[in-house]
């Protein structure tokens, strides 16, 4: 499939938004980074909105979403619901934060709800791409890889914001190490899972589509992330994820989260975008002949 940049941006930014929001909930639970809460929430909301705008570039008739949108079995509908729910939770969160002023405190239940809803959004989003027709996509690890990105994005961004607001804590290092490690593992795991789908495509040794006489029918490896054009993207996804982990280690060692938080978030961004690129490149139907 061709790279669908609006969708790539959408999923990546949403994972970021959800990851950041969940991270700030964790920080709140641990009673850390109070002054970072409001900026984090705003950042997260902005990411959500930008991601949402990106997706419109994918739609050909977005004006029509107002008439008859909402078929429940559709992943897009479910996503939209999850987004709305998350947005509501964020608004509630905002209200609590405003009430708390500078010593922002949100109730424990709300933080927990925030984490859960953020995770659900990412899962629902990933789930909407689980299509039986596309073996490379039809994997729980595909969802997990988005969660991985969220785990990488959240702590890195939160650590960065805390550093800017002078609120660094031991949580920065701990959460980043765990988050980035999880991202590395899930990126690699999903790529391996994709590679493993190689046998599930319908194969015919000799066939011909009259409309494309110059097409080469020998398998070009487009269904495998570690071959052909997608190889470079797959390598970037892994290297960037590992670099993200490196940034966490560096952050722990140097404590300078302004730098290492930013570097970490950037690494996750590059890794996530690259992984999504691989995702589209290997998005080949089980019956790749038409």
């Amino acid at each position, binding site marked *: 499939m061709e790279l669908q940049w609006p969708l790539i941006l959408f999923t990546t930014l949403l994972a970021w938004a959800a990851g950041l929001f969940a991270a700030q909930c964790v920080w709140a639970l641990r009673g850390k980074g109070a002054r970072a809460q409001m900026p984090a929430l705003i950042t997260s909301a902005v990411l959500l909105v930008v991601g949402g705008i990106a997706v419109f570039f994918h739609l050909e008739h977005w004006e029509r979403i107002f008439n008859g949108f909402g078929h429940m079995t559709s992943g897009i509908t479910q996503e939209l619901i999850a987004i709305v729910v998350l947005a509501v939770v964020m608004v509630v969160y905002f209200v609590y934060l405003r009430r708390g002023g500078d010593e922002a405190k949100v109730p424990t239940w709300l933080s927990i709800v925030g984490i859960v809803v953020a995770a659900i959004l990412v899962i629902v989003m990933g789930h909407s791409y689980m299509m039986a027709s596309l073996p490379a996509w039809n994997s729980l690890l595909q969802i997990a890889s988005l969660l991985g990105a969220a785990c990488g994005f959240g702590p890195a961004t939160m650590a960065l914001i805390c550093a800017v607001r002078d609120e660094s804590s031991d949580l920065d290092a701990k959460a980043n190490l765990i988050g980035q490690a999880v991202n590395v593992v899930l990126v690699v795991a999903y790529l391996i899972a994709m590679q493993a789908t190689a046998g599930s495509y319908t194969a015919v040794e*000799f066939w*011909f589509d*009259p*409309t*494309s*006489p*110059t*097409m*080469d*029918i*020998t398998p070009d490896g487009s269904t495998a992330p570690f071959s052909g054009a997608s190889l470079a993207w797959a390598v970037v996804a892994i290297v960037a994820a590992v670099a993200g982990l490196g940034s966490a280690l560096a952050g722990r060692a140097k404590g300078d989260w302004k730098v290492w938080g930013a570097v970490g978030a950037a690494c996750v961004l590059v890794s996530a975008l690259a992984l999504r690129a691989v995702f589209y490149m290997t998005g080949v139907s089980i019956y790749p002949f038409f």
Partner: protein
Amino acid sequence: EDAEAPSRGSEIKRVRTCCRGCGKMECGVWVTVENGRAIKSEGDQSSFQSSGNHCGKGQASIQAAYHPDRIYHPLKRTNPKGEDPGWVRITWDEAMDTIGEKFTEIIDQYGGQSIFNMCGTSRQWVYGPYCFYKWLFDTPNAHVASEICKGPRRLMGSITSVDGAPWMALRDGPRVYVQWGTAPENSNYDDSCRNLVDQMNNADVHICIDPRLSGSGKEADYWLNLRPGTDGALALCWQHIILKHDLVDWEFVKRWSNASFLVVEDMEPTGGRYYELFTPMAGSTADSPAPPADVVGTKLKTRLLKESDVVEGGSPRKFYAWNKNANGGQGGLVLWDVDTTQWEGCNHVAPTRDQMEVMYAGTSQEGYLPPISYNELVEAGIDLDMHDSHEVTLADGSKHTARPVWSYLEESVADCTPEWCAEITGLDPALVEEACVVWATRPEGQTYGNGGIHLQLAPDQIGNCTQSVRAILHLMYMTGNFDGPAGNRGLTRSPLDEQATGVPGSNMPQEVKAQLISLGVIPVEGVEPDPMNVPDRIETLSNMVSADRFPLLAYYNEWSDATRIWNACIEGDPYPLKGGINESGSFMNMSNANLAWEALSKLDFWVDINMFHHPGTEMADIILPCQHWLELNNIRVSQGASGGIGLTQRAIEPPADTKFDYDINRLLFETMERHGSPNGTWTNIAGDGPGAYHHDDRLEDWFQNNSKTNPKVKWEHWEDFRQDFQENGWINAKEIEPDRWGTYRRFETGWMRMGKDACTGKLFTCDEKGEPVNNFGCPTPTALVEFWPLLFENYCVDRANEIEPGRYDLLHEMMPHFDEPASGPGGGQVDLEEYPIILTTGRRIPVYFHSEHRQLPWCRELWPAPRLEMNPADAEKLGLKQGDWAWIETEWGKVRQCVDLYHGIAPGWANAEHAWWFPELPAPTHGFTLSNIECIWDPYGQDTHISSHHMRGVPVKIYKATPENCPDGKVIPCAPEDGTQIICDASDPRLKEWLPNYDIREEA
């Protein structure tokens, strides 16, 4: 005439008509016209002969009518040949004035024969180049596609039994279906894809003879994938097997062929005059009996023993066979009399209807089957000897050995065993034998064959087609499938005939004119009539370019050898060809396209009548725009054996300055007449007044006239016919011509021995009621199916040997044999180390008609680029993958096509596409040099008898196209003129620029 041409307004009309998206099958279709615009076409189920089929290119062909690149006006060139012509719009008047002037100049300076006409296979209404331009310019020279298409089969049928004898009645439904060198699923060649699929499914056994696996062949019970170009060997082997298993239909062979005639090898050929299919004037009607054979017959000599050889004053038209019963069992001579068409002692009379079996009752194929009258020979005490030598005494007292024709046939195939065949064809000998036996063995009690051989194009295009086609014809004759149920019947007979409405009235072929002058019927100043010395066709026509090499061609007068024509344009040998006219032909259809291109560039004046620009039109001085099938009226009769009669009916108004071909023909005659040529006179249908009027009016004249003289033409007016067709659909020739077409074995009834044309073809002899008398058998010189063809003996052997002494060995030539084609792999001329792959070509592309439709979006998107089918093993060796571009090369040239890995063709063989050019590339070449396979042919690889070119089984070299070995480093072919790349994928946006433009036709 609103009904004919729906005018504007929001109405929907359904017009029943006949598709002409190609020039082959006459598929009946419905055209839907909305607000005056044709919006779709669909198969008409009343079209029984095509079974309602409507192929892809036919459906797409409505896009041609509205094409933005169509030619809408007469054009003249403003730049020298070889450059972009710089076409400029002119009026019809200017065009016709120039044409008249230029042709007259050429004729005055070099004579009429320096003009040649050109036509492809095209449409039924482009008959000018095939016949009446020859009359107009008084030239025998024509470059026409029949040379490599139908011509070989028609001609071999003509000289051995009847015109087009191979045409098989497929829709009857053969019990065993033998598909030979044809793939009608894509070609719809005289039978539609639907007919084919139905019949291959209905047959008990399906045998397919094709080197490559085809869409229909994939379902065959027996697939004989012979090496391309070796069909002759297989046919000889089948003859061998039929003899070995004694599967010969003896009753037919003895009663109705000349197989029992006695050959006297060492006798000087003798003879006289004989009626045959092409005898001008042969034909009689109740009120005008034909002049006797003695006067107008064709002069022929033969080594067959005749009464005139044995008895002083005997007839040359009485032939001897050996009757084993004669002289109380000692044996003796018995006569076949061609004038009475009777065996000595027999009095054959046509069987009556109730003596005939009704076949296929209740279907469109219902017809009558007379019994074979072999019993008459038995009753007359004749037991023909087919094998042994006998001593005969000639009138001069000399004694000679004579032996039956059949014994020569037996001898000729004695060594053609399945093993011999396997050596040549690469086939499994057991499979060859089994398939043949299955075909030739009749079920107990079945009085007719299992079905004929569906022999179509491939063997025509092998450089030994004369003998290969004859060998296959022998199979049909031997097994009693000639004019049998589902047999090889020849061309549909019909009282209507499209061409009859197009001919220039009482104007006539040169050879007919010469005869009439000689008979004194046409008085010519200074010429003394000499009725006892009427000239032959060949005498009138032997000034044809190439007649010295291929004498039969001057007799046949359909084509002159294409290569010789190009040579005459370039080198002026034997005399210069200076100009001519192309009406629907493509120079890249045989010989060698680069040679043709050079020749065209040398001409003083060349006219092209076309609907689209084409590499060929770009060499013209003037282009005349013709009309599309949606825009014209033309009667249509099945050209094969399917028996459909219908009509191409105008559905939309013709655009701009376009004209119907028949009307353009008339204008050409007119301008020549204006410039002083007496040949240009065009009379009306009745021949009694000037006939220069629009073709629609001519149709009316035709019906008025013919309904008076022929009761079968039951429509008094054109409009009656048109309405009948609109309301009731296709007409069945079997129903309206029960004698001429609805009856099988017409040699038994007297309705087979008549002239060539369906409509004007007349019985050789008839009574005052117009019923045949003494007219049994076939329109051959002996009136029988000729295993020993007199015309062949005369023209192909004796005359050829006269011109080039020692050229042929008589006995070798007289029976079909297999000599490898000169430019084939066994011909000894090509270095097989250098050119190791055997290439065949021609398999039809479902959405193209040769070079046509390449600019129609619905066609081109479906088949964007030329493809070369190769066995994957060969491809691997050559480092070629699916979709790669490869060079195909011979000593004569090289082109590129795109590789298609195809296990359906054996290693060592390959199959390329023909007729490619690229309308998206600029004039003048439109890229024909890039991929057109005709650019690589050996122009001298023709069949030695009739010159047909060799394009099935050509040794070539194939290798990958790389940036290093391609012009400008571009692997995908690009225009030599400006580097534009060809379209090779359905997604190319240029395809959309070719969508219909409905405005141009209004503006123009």
